[in-house]
């Protein structure tokens, strides 16, 4: 069984985002980039499927500019067997990404596709679900456990208020939540080996997908700032303020 895992190149989570002076977008020029944290969890899960003997091959896929080959190399260093880079200079919306991935799925016929539940840049939380709709594969989103049992998969999902368990008919699409696993780090020998693993570059055109805009970004602003209030001396003063000034208790 093949596993496809997607990785997105996003701004490093340690970097504080700046909005461009003209308000056209956030300023990503020369900013440190890294693999989306939820994608790291996805890669880890894919590798574990291979290590447990459930999967035979792990294919990492990324959509984006040439630079996202860095993140694909990281996925290869972590244990993916090969990589597919769908090269595009545009910032693609989720539906376009899902359509490209659907084509890759059509070609590769994986048993499991694992994606991060959301990317920490656009915070959309869409691609996995869209991919499920486009391919007709069952979806297990926000997974905290994925258990493949032959022709079905048991997925435990993080939902508001607790955990939900679903049984999905294979093949499946899963998206990762935080507690699914703790991603490993790439070892130095594996970083070296990753250089020699195959990385195939494709374009939307080759895949027969027409990129279409569904939204237009009008502007980006800083969020409304909240001002600091006062410091209270002790618990008594705090309770007094909450009762008599803010009137919330």
């Amino acid at each position, binding site marked *: 069984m093949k596993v496809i895992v997607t990785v997105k190149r996003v701004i490093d989570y340690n970097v504080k985002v700046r909005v461009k002076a003209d308000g056209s977008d956030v300023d990503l020029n020369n900013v440190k980039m890294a693999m989306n944290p939820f994608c790291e969890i996805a890669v880890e899960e894919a590798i574990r499927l291979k290590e447990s003997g459930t999967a035979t091959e792990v294919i990492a896929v990324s959509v984006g500019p040439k630079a996202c080959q860095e993140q694909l190399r990281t996925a290869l260093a972590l244990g993916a067997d090969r990589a597919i880079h769908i090269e595009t200079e545009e910032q693609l919306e989720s539906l376009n990404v899902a359509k490209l991935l659907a084509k890759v799925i059509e070609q590769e016929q994986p048993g499991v596709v694992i994606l991060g539940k959301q990317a920490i840049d656009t915070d959309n939380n869409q691609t996995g679900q869209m991919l499920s709709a486009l391919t007709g594969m069952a979806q297990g989103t926000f997974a905290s456990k994925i258990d493949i049992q032959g022709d079905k998969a048991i997925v435990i999902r993080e939902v508001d208020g607790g955990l939900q368990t679903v049984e999905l008919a294979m093949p499946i699409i899963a998206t990762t939540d935080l507690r699914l696993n703790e991603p490993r780090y790439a070892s130095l020998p594996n970083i070296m080996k990753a250089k020699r693993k195959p990385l195939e570059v494709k374009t939307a055109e080759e895949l027969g997908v027409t990129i279409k805009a569904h939204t237009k970004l009008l502007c980006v602003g800083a969020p409304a700032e909240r001002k600091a209030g006062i410091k209270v001396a002790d618990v008594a003063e705090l309770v007094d303020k909450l009762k008599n000034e803010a009137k*919330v208790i």
Partner: protein
Amino acid sequence: MSILVIAEHDNDSVKNSTLNTVTAALAIADDVTVLVAGSNCQSAAQSAAKITGVSKVLVADNPVYANQLAENMRALIVELAAGKTHLLAPATTSGKNIMPGVAALLDVGQISEIIKVESADVFERPVYAGNAVAKVQSLDAIKVITVRTTAFEEAGETGRASIEEVSAVCDEAKSKFIGEEVAVSERPELTSAKIVISGGRGMGNGENFGLLEAVADKLGAAVGASRAAVDAGFVSNDMQVGQTGKIVAPDLYIAVGISGAIQHLAGMKDSKVIVAINKDEEAPIFSIADYGLVADLFEAVPELEASL
């Protein structure tokens, strides 16, 4: 313009998140229909019909919708989308699970977690963990949207909408509900509580969250946690408040032992009153707190409980 709101409900009644979503819908247009899809969900439909401003309630009452599995729900919604200009759902784990698939089947984009309706096709939404707000225009004929519930008031319950049965049975048979492990609690749900008390890494371990629970019991509050506390394994992820967890905006938010990482702030900064208790005077949480108390939480929290 005609809007379909996908209700979130437990078959008995609609959840508050549906009320917020209706408010967002009414900010776009007046013609708002609510879909209640479930199993034995007539009473939920009744409660949906009472939501102020709703003109019609569609009820799809069939076992295939019992747990609102995404595969069946999206097929149903697509069938009902004809003639609609907007499809809205709350940006809860349920809405997030269903709506992108609906968009994909309709070959349109989705606009996630809107916090403001500028016009019928222009919306604001937070990006980059709340560090920026994007204003986006939809270019699609049908706009699929999820709504950040805390950004919109709850609609009233003075309506008298008509109820119409939907007969479509969409069973994709791809997935099956096996079970649910709902955290059983006497306390209110995190996203709808009027008061929330949350703990961070400073709590030290999971047992110490008992201190917060004691306060929560006195105030009728829900208990939350920062991502740091979840990552450290103190408490489960469903308690996480933040950009990657739950977004809350209660009347009172009490942050205990939470430093105030941006991703946590993104999940609670719309609270009406924020209290921070932290022994580190420099903690960023104080920069957004209305009332800050620099103190050892292990002394201050029991004292707070005692004085309530």
